[in-house]
């Protein structure tokens, strides 16, 4: 048997496959299709201090091998999460990670402090990279100083595993990664969506109510892979890779480029069982290539 266990900070995952925030609901939406407990972990929807209605419709546009979204962090707020969602998802035995967003540092801190109290939430993913909200969001993730500031603040109150999710909409992602590593992040996840746009020449209008939105899906994979590889060569903390992973091959490519774990996002919409198929596919690949453990394969890219 191959060893699929990986560690992200204090977090132990039974395999490197997680599901990406905003693409897997709270897991419950997928109970009809898969045994969610087979996953390495799930990252639940972006959660903010106050309830948010999100952006106006339309929020979605299809693009070549991808999609744009402008959901805008619709969620019912942290208190609703604690009282209504948390009890429901405690049935899962897989790792539960909450993706946290906010428009200012105080909001982030309040949410994080509340999550710190929840036994079954061993880690948070700090979203400093959402392109779909007016204030906060991506703004935190596109400069080193603000990324440092928020990571430092959260780190000082949050004692469990802290993952910081990086924005690809930057000139130099390694600098941001190094900064959040220096401020005590246990891991980085990358990439969030790329800022994109789509219009209709029939209506002459943008296809999203917000004009621009976040691009995800296979179209972004080459960019995501490159960033994972760059960051792998720049930091020591584990990297969680994502962006366009549609199958086990894609997942293995990210791990080959240095990712300790991966997340499946948009692919869940095309095939709700895909995350489980990816775990199977990774196992098969390692077995047929006689690789004993996923960590042996990690970052083993051959540069001749």
């Amino acid at each position, binding site marked *: 048997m191959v060893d699929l266990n990986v560690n992200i900070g204090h977090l132990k995952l039974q395999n490197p496959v997680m599901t990406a925030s905003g693409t897997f609901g709270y897991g419950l939406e997928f109970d009809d299709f898969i045994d969610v407990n087979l996953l390495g972990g799930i990252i639940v929807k972006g959660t903010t201090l106050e309830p948010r*209605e999100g952006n106006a*419709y339309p*929020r979605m546009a299809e693009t070549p091998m991808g999609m744009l979204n402008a959901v805008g962090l619709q969620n019912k707020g942290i208190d609703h999460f604690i009282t209504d969602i948390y009890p429901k998802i405690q049935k899962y035995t897989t790792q539960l990670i909450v993706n946290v967003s906010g428009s200012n540092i105080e909001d982030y801190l309040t949410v994080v402090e509340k999550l710190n109290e929840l036994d079954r939430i061993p880690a948070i993913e700090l979203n400093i990279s959402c392109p779909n909200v007016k204030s906060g969001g991506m703004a935190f993730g596109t400069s080193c100083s603000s990324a440092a500031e928020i990571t430092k603040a959260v780190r000082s109150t949050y004692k469990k595993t802290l993952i910081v999710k990086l924005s690809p909409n930057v000139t130099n992602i390694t600098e941001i990664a190094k900064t959040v590593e220096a401020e005590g992040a246990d891991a980085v996840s990358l990439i969030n969506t790329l800022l994109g746009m789509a219009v209709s020449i029939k209506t002459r209008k943008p296809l999203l109510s917000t004009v621009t939105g976040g691009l995800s899906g296979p179209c972004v994979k080459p960019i995501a892979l490159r960033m994972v590889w760059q960051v792998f060569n720049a930091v020591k903390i584990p990297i969680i890779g994502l962006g366009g992973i549609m199958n086990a091959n894609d997942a293995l490519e990210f791990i080959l480029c240095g990712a300790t774990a991966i997340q499946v996002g948009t692919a869940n919409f095309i095939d709700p069982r895909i995350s489980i198929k990816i775990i199977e596919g990774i196992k098969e690949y390692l077995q047929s290539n006689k690789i004993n453990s996923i960590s042996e394969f990690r970052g083993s890219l051959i540069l001749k």
Partner: protein
Amino acid sequence: MHKKHIEDFIVLLNEKLNEDTFLLLLKHPHKLPEINAGQFAEVLVEDSPLTFLRRPLSIHDVDYKNNTLSLLIKKLGKGTKKLSELKPDNFLNLIFPLGNSFTLLNNEKVLLTGGGCGIAPLLYLSRKLNEKGCDVHILLAAKTASDIVRLKTYENYGKLYFTTEDNSLGEKGLIIQHSLFKNLSVFKKIYTCGPERMMQAVARLAANNEIPCEVSLENTMACGIGACLCCVTETKTGNKCVCVDGPVFNTKDLKW
């Protein structure tokens, strides 16, 4: 809610109904799970470079004896065009049944009305209502007679009426100009689907006559199962997902 499934159906029939409408008859390889009127499927369009996401399509009719369901589809763009090329024995992957469903009444007089490929979910609905002893009246609207398809099948489950803009079938004019709307209060409920503007007009008249009205909304969807929050519509109690809280809404809850 019913359990959702993902399954490769086998295409039994692809029937061209008019210039741009076709009917797909699909066989489930095992026992077809229960499906309610108004539910839809998310259909995977394969071998289509620019069709990345699934396409939401209403379930047009269901046959539990033969384990088949049918889809009534209008060729609109890349995905529906590709589906129109399916041949018998091809596979088609569906996630289904999705969404809520129409509220059924027993032994009441009801009006089903729609236009365009909006009429797709009305067939299964009319059958269900007919089975429940309702007096079913179906009003279909179109630009011209050839736009109206599956007429004979609808006739099995209710009394048919038409409006056409060019007066080629039924009464001339738009849907709400039909004489049925002169005396709406005989109906206990109105069900409508079609272009948004049409549904809004019907809903307004229903509201004026204090008759409950259910609509089936269309919307751009990514997942179809409530996971992405891309498909919201504004309601009086906030944004709701058309794919799980809908596609059927009581118009009194909408911000129309």
